């Protein structure tokens, strides 16, 4: 079934994409999906295309993540790019239910170049839904140029988000009294771009100055700090420019990691097949008796799994 769905996905079938995202969200058949996606298929619409840009939007609840994403969707569409959004909202730990209200703020359309999926993020699993890495690969394979992630708005520095996204946009708002918390939680460190949103509010410039001061104190990394108002329709072009000016951080790391992951799986399989081998048992016993060092036993084991 997965193979058929992936085939349909590669031919641009939206319903297949939607179904594969659901299967992935449930954590089913991940290995199958992942390994199929890792192999560039021929003929594939992905080949020769530049890689997708994955942009994460994070920040406390109500800072305007969904509204801003809605605006950026239009902007990026006008540049002729296709956009997909994975929007996370929290799932109740008690009922398991979730009210997924982000897409309502993003505006509705029937534009084929826009795809929005709402996802429930379980409490205790960080600021995003599970298996987002595989979902991003599915959207890339389908051919989206830009992929936006909306976090649940925990407002905390989240390493996982940083690993998944090329660019992390941290959104803050005036008069939130957040400034001490930024420092404490190390929130600013995770950001590639900082947006002071709702800059139509009077104290926005003050907040931006505080952020700049905090950045100067900490790392000397130059992070753009931009004022944006979606309400007043200001600052989005500058924001997109800043996002596009950044390198695609994710690509080299995660492609290599994916390959490594598959290598690990292969080695584990080989190891499991050989657990009863006489040679392996001899090695283990020698190690247990202290006749070979751990380092050398590991080396020998790795070499024995080479083929």
């Amino acid at each position, binding site marked *: 079934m997965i193979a058929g769905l992936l085939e349909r996905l590669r031919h641009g079938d*939206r*319903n297949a994409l*939607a*179904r594969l*995202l*659901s299967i992935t969200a*449930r954590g089913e058949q991940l290995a199958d999906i992942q390994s199929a996606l890792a192999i560039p298929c021929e003929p594939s619409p992905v080949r020769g295309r530049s890689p997708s840009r994955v942009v994460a939007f994070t920040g406390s609840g109500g800072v305007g993540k969904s509204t801003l994403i809605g605006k950026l969707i239009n902007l990026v569409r006008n540049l002729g790019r296709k956009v997909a959004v994975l929007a996370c909202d929290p*799932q*109740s730990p008690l*009922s*398991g*239910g*979730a*009210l*997924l*209200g982000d*897409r*309502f703020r993003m505006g*509705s*359309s*029937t534009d084929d170049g826009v*795809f*929005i*999926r*709402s996802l*429930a993020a379980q409490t205790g699993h960080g600021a995003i839904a599970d298996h987002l890495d595989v979902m991003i690969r599915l959207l890339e394979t389908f051919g989206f140029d830009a992929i936006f992630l909306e976090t649940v708005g925990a407002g905390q520095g989240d390493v996982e988000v940083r690993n998944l996204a090329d660019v992390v946009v941290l959104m803050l708002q005036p008069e939130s009294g957040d400034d001490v918390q930024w420092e404490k939680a190390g929130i600013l460190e995770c950001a590639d771009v900082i947006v002071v949103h709702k800059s139509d509010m009077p104290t926005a410039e003050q907040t931006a100055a505080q952020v700049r001061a905090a950045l100067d104190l900490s790392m000397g990394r130059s992070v753009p700090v931009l004022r944006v108002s979606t309400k007043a329709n200001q600052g989005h072009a500058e924001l997109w420019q800043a996002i596009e000016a950044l390198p695609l951080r994710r690509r080299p790391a995660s492609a290599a990691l994916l390959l490594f992951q598959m290598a690990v799986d292969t080695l584990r399989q080989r190891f499991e097949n050989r657990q009863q081998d006489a040679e392996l048992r001899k090695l283990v016993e020698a190690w247990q008796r202290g006749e070979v060092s751990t380092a050398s036993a590991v080396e020998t084991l790795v070499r024995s799994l080479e083929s």
Partner: protein
Amino acid sequence: MDQPIRIVLAKVGLDGHDRGIKVVARALRDAGMHVIYAGLWQTPEAVVRTVADEDADWLGLSLLSGAHMTLVPRVLDILKQADLANVGVIVGGIIPEADIPKLTAMGVAKIFGPGTSLDDIVAFLKTPREHKP
């Protein structure tokens, strides 16, 4: 483990009241469902697109404006065109008694009038459907 039911809730038509649909959204969430709130003033085309992209099991339409006999068939039609006839459709709002059999004949799974209790909606959605994929 049982997978949560995914339902899209949307208002089609011109009236701008969303209190009712929001109350329903919360009740379904509290009953363990994943509720995608699509909002007001949705066109039938946009609603179906949302259902497709969200891979929803159910679509809940709310209508107060009296245009149900044109809007509901239109949604059902576009669902079919989009290869989504397997999605269950429920309708809430002010629907005259005489129109109910017509709408069910067209393929609406259930119509919930103004007096419906939230428990009834939850119970209906949680009853297994035979014709699900």
